[in-house]
Structures are given as structure tokens and as C-alpha cells.
């Protein structure tokens, strides 16, 4: 009951004209930026963080959450119409959605994505509303041991849950940790890893690092590719929206995607991208029309898009109630909170409960705004796809430069931006994923602080990890979380083998 009262209060202030305006603006801005080819939610937020400087915290956060939602939907448009996913989460949409668009069913693909996102997003926020207070209560028994363990789990999962090389994902995490440790040690005040440069004693700014990694390599790569790399934009003048059959085929994938996405989203270190992939794989497995997958199966858009958006809501739960981001994008949001002097976690629900509930309420509003604005306006957004690449990417470079300048007001800050841009480019070229390092950079101060406190309390012993009931439970869950996927993969492969055998 208390929760509903809190939420009601949140709605009261989220519906104030200015808050409402920022929620709408965020969704719109997010969609516009998300539509731009190659720009996903994380780049959109990184580029737009400077816009929120100097805003009231509540407005800035409402704006950025709206940008997050909007950019995810914008990414689906790009994936569907030009097969350029701005983010990994919409990579599967780029397969099925694009095929649908080629067959003249682009509108149906975008509609099932939008409606699925709305339903799943709203369900996930309902989950967030009621689960966060529970988790906050639980968090009261958490000590340094549990926090350290949760953060270590987040980093470990972020690396094991990735595709390609796990070693490379781990390298990305350690690069993030390495960057995060530069500067004065907060406990002793001693300089670390500054290579004798006084300028480095304040550490490397998180926003500069995020902008450098998520905007510059993509922009430079596209500018250097030059003409000739022109995408074919699928048009949809006379297409139909969803038919009755489309609705029937979408309903269950939406439901399954919502549940799956929400659960995966809550796990620390595992973002919505895994949710959308898992949903795709699941839909393909249980579909009666397996042969349609890869050739425009609507289930392959409906499920993953729902899972993706449910995952966002799920990922907000550990962020809000424990202060532990579940993905790179929520890591960016955590940074924005701290930029405003707020520390998400159990305390924020006590000390700034008005603010946190306003943000949660604004998420409901943002989801509604998304579906009201985006379906009718999709024709306008599509025009953005025709924006010449040289104009788009050179503008992005200018915007991140302004962002970096607005943070440091110095040549040093600008040079850091350029240097990390080069590092980001080289990482991408070497196949090292960028996102885990952002997560690591945000987590390293918390990780180290809790590690120190844990060992200080225990006098240097690691035993509390096993003797404290809560921490032991986390360890058990963590082992299940790591072993689980391996068994799942083994099971899937076995079934595949069996299926192959029975075919012969």
C-alpha cells in the first residue's frame, strides 16, 4: 500500500507540466538520435549527457530515462529499415525486421516492435515499482561483503555472458578497471597510476571516457569509409499495419519476451541485449514456422523487442535499489545520478523518495508517450535515415567535443577525449567489446571501497564471504548463473544434434 501512495506522489510531480515536457522531449530526442544509423542508446545517452548539465536533477534524470527509451525504439526503426542496428540488442531485429520490410511488411514490423516494447516496458516498470521496495528492505542486511560480491558478480557476468571471446570481454573489463584506478586514492589520498602527471590526479572523467568510446570510433569509421557504403532504405508507402494474423502471432512472443527480458534484466552485469538474443532463440525453437525465421518471421521481432524493453525495466531495479548497474547503459545513468550528488541505493528511497518515485512515474509516462508519438511519426523519423553520413558523423564529433569541453574546460580534457577515441577505435579493431569497460569504470571505486571494508572488518580474512548467510546465497546464485547458461547451451546443442539425427 505504501508503494502505491509513493507512486501516486511520484505521478503527481511527474505530471507537472515541466516534468511532463522533459519526459516527452527525452523520448522524442532519444528516438531522433536512436534512429541515426550506428547510434544506439548508450551513444545517445553519452552524447546527450552534457545537455542535462545545469538542469534540476529530477528533470535531467527524467530527460535521460526518456532518451534511453526513445533511443531503443529509434534503434528498431534503423534496424528494420536499413539493417543497421545501433546496438547489439536490436541486432536480431535487423535480421527479421529487415526481411519483413523487404517483403513490404515494414509497418507491421515496426508496429509489433512498438506495441511489444510498450507492453513489456510497462510490465517491467510495474515490476520495478513493486520489487524495488522489497529489494531495498533486503539491502538493509547487506554489508560490504555482499556489495563487493554483487559487484564482482556483475563484472564476471558481463564477461561470461558475452559472445565471441570471453578473454576479450575480460580484457575490456580490466581496461575499464585500469582507467578507473588512475588518480588519487580516495582512502589515503595517494596518487596512483598518474605517471607523474598532476593533471591525472583527478582521474579520468567518466563522461569523456564514455563519449570517446561510444561516439568517436563509430564516427571516424563511417567518415573514413567514404561514399559507396550506401545503405538501401526500405520504404513503406502503401504497407498495411498489423493484420489480424500478425496480432495473433505477436501476442505470445510479447508475453514470453516480457517475462524473459525482465528476469534477465534484473541480473547484475547482464543487460537487455542478452534478453533479446535469448528471446529470439527461444521463439525460433518453439515456433511451428521455423523455416520462416531468417525470412521475416514476425515472432522474431515481437519477442526480442519486448524482451529488450522489459530488460531495461529489470536493469533499473538493481540500479535504483542497490546502486549497482546491470549494464553499460545503466552504468551511464548511475553516473548521472552521482553527477547530481545522488547515490542510488537503499538510502535514496529514504532520503530522496520523492525524486526516485517521480522518476519511476515518469517512466510509465515515457512508455505511453513512446507509443503515442512514435507510431504516427514514424514517417518523419524515417527521413532522418536519409541524412548524409558526412553531415551526421561530423556533427556528432563536434557534439562530443562540446561535451568534453563543458566537463573540463581545458585542453587536457579535450586531448583525453581524442586519446580515448583512438583507444576505443583500436579496441574495436581488435574485437574487444567496449561496453564492459564502461561498467567496470563505474564500478571500480565501489568495488575497491567495499573490498577494503570487508577485509578491514574481518581483519584480512576472506571467510565472511562464506560464513555470512546472505553472501553465501549470492555465491550459490552466482555459481548457478554461470553454470546455468553452460547447461542451457549444452541442452540446446544436444537438442539440435538430436533433431539433426532424427532428420536423417
Amino acid at each position, binding site marked *: 500500500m505504501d508503494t502505491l501512495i509513493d507512486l501516486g506522489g511520484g505521478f503527481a510531480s511527474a505530471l507537472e507540466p515541466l516534468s511532463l515536457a522533459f519526459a516527452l522531449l527525452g523520448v522524442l530526442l532519444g528516438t531522433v538520435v536512436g534512429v541515426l544509423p*550506428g*547510434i*544506439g542508446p*548508450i*551513444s545517445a545517452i553519452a552524447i546527450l549527457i552534457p*545537455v542535462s548539465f545545469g538542469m534540476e536533477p529530477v528533470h535531467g534524470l527524467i530527460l535521460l530515462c526518456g532518451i534511453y527509451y526513445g533511443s531503443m525504439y529509434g534503434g528498431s526503426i534503423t534496424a528494420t529499415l536499413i539493417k543497421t542496428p545501433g*546496438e*547489439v540488442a536490436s*541486432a536480431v531485429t535487423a535480421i527479421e525486421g529487415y526481411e519483413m520490410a523487404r517483403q513490404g511488411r515494414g509497418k507491421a514490423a515496426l508496429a509489433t516492435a512498438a506495441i511489444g516494447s510498450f507492453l513489456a516496458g510497462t510490465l517491467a516498470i510495474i515490476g520495478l515499482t513493486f520489487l524495488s521496495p522489497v529489494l531495498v528492505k533486503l539491502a538493509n542486511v547487506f554489508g560490504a561483503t555482499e556489495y563487493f560480491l554483487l559487484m564482482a558478480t556483475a563484472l564476471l557476468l558481463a564477461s561470461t*555472458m*558475452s559472445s*565471441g*571471446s570471453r*578473454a576479450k570481454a*575480460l*580484457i*575490456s573489463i*580490466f*581496461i575499464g578497471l585500469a582507467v578507473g584506478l588512475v588518480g588519487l586514492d580516495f582512502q589515503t589520498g*595517494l*596518487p*596512483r*597510476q598518474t605517471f607523474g602527471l598532476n593533471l591525472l590526479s583527478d582521474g579520468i572523467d567518466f563522461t569523456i571516457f564514455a563519449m570517446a568510446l*561510444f561516439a*568517436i*570510433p*563509430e564516427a*571516424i*569509421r563511417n*567518415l*573514413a569509409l*567514404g*561514399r559507396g*557504403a550506401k545503405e538501401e532504405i526500405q520504404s513503406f508507402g502503401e504497407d498495411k499495419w498489423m493484420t489480424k494474423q500478425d496480432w495473433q502471432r505477436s501476442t505470445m512472443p510479447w508475453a514470453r519476451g516480457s517475462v524473459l527480458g525482465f528476469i534477465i534484466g534484473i541480473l547484475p552485469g547482464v*543487460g537487455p541485449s*542478452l534478453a533479446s*538474443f*535469448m528471446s*529470439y*532463440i527461444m521463439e525460433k525453437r518453439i515456433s511451428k514456422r521455423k523455416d520462416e525465421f531468417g525470412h521475416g518471421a514476425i515472432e522474431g521481432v515481437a519477442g526480442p523487442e519486448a524482451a529488450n524493453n522489459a530488460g531495461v525495466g529489470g536493469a533499473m531495479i538493481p540500479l535504483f535499489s542497490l546502486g549497482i548497474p546491470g*549494464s*553499460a547503459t545503466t552504468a551511464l545513468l548511475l553516473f548521472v545520478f552521482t553527477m547530481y550528488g545522488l547515490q542510488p541505493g537503499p538510502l535514496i528511497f529514504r532520503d530522496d523518495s520523492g525524486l526516485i518515485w517521480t522518476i519511476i512515474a515518469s517512466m510509465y509516462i515515457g512508455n505511453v508517450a513512446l507509443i503515442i508519438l512514435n507510431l504516427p511519426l514514424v514517417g518523419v523519423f524515417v527521413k532522418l535515415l536519409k541524412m548524409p*553520413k*558526412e553531415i551526421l558523423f561530423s556533427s556528432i*564529433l*563536434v557534439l562530443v*567535443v*562540446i561535451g568534453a569541453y*563543458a566537463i573540463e574546460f581545458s*585542453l587536457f580534457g*579535450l586531448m583525453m577525449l581524442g586519446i580515448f577515441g583512438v583507444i*576505443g577505435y583500436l579496441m*574495436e579493431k581488435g574485437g*574487444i567489446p*567496449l*561496453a*564492459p569497460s564502461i561498467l567496470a569504470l563505474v564500478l571500480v571505486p565501489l568495488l575497491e571501497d567495499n*573490498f577494503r571494508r570487508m577485509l578491514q572488518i574481518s*581483519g*584480512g580474512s576472506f571467510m565472511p564471504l562464506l560464513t555470512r548467510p546472505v553472501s553465501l546465497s549470492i555465491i550459490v546464485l552466482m555459481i548457478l548463473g554461470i553454470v546455468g547458461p553452460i547447461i542451457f547451451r549444452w541442452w540446446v546443442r544436444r537438442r539440435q544434434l538430436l533433431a539433426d539425427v532424427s532428420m536423417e
Partner: protein
Amino acid sequence: MRSMSPALRGDVITGLAVTLIGVVYYIATFWIQETNNIVTPRTFPAIVGIALIVLGVFLVGQALYRGRKLAEAAPSAADSATGRAVGSGGEDGSASGGASAVVLEAPEDPPSKKVVLQFVLFFVYLAILIPIGFLLSTTAFLMTMTSIYAPHRWIRNLIFSVLFALVVYVAFVYGLAVYLPVGILG
């Protein structure tokens, strides 16, 4: 090495680079003053340095091992093993390869010379931004970048460069109170 696929050769280079970074990072920890806490300020940086070395060496070893195995077996179908995930901006930069149901296309790689040129121009822009000022340096930067890409549309490029710089300047300085450098116009 000779018969190694480009992807594996790339891994060897990446692994060596990571190892080198780890070594430099670890050596740098010797300058951190020791304290008598249980966890000293050096503990974490040292762990990170060693981990980078280990991971770098592991990557090199893995690539060499795979290269040898591939040379023994069929030499084709090698590159798909270490295909990389979709471009940047990824939610988690990772994708569950999971059950081999989804194949992602690796993004096209631009020629290195052009990449270096773009980065050099970008650094020039960063260097002149404060002394020359936002308006002039940004117009020049945008004009250069767009004209390299589309030289024949220079009129459009010029109009865009001037307008974009002006609009952004006004928006940030008057709208958001972020004061951009005025430089020689000041």
C-alpha cells in the same frame, strides 16, 4: 604465422598489445606509496596489471594454438570463429552467441590511411578549439570533414558548417549556459 588467418593474426597483435599495457601498468604501480593497511592503494592496480598481462598472453597463446589446429585441419572456415559483434554503441557490446542461431555480420573496415587522416584532423580541431575559438574552428573542421567526403557539394557543406556552428553555439551558450571558447573573436 604464415598460414594464419587474418582474424587470428589480429588476436596475436591484440594480445601482445594488451600484455604490453599490462606490463607498463604493473611497473607504474611501483611508484605507488605503500601503506600498512590490509588492502594498500597498490593492491588493486597491481591485480589489474597482472590480469592484463595474463589475459594478453592467453589471447596470444589461444590464437597460436588455434592457428596450428586450423593449419592441421581444413584451412577454410577459420574467420567465423572469432567474428566480432556489431559495431559500437552496443548495449553490452556483447551478444549471446548462445546456440549459434544468430550470425552477426562484422562491420566493414575502412582503409587505415583514411582512419589516421580523420584522427589527425580531429586532433587538430581539439588543439585549435580553445585558442581559435569555437565558431571558427568548428566551421573549419566541419567544412574539412564534409568536403573530404563530398567535395562536389561544397556550397551545401559551407552552409551546413556555418549554420551548425552558429546554432550549436547559441543553443549551448544562451540556452544551457555552457560557455564555449570565444578565442580570437572574443
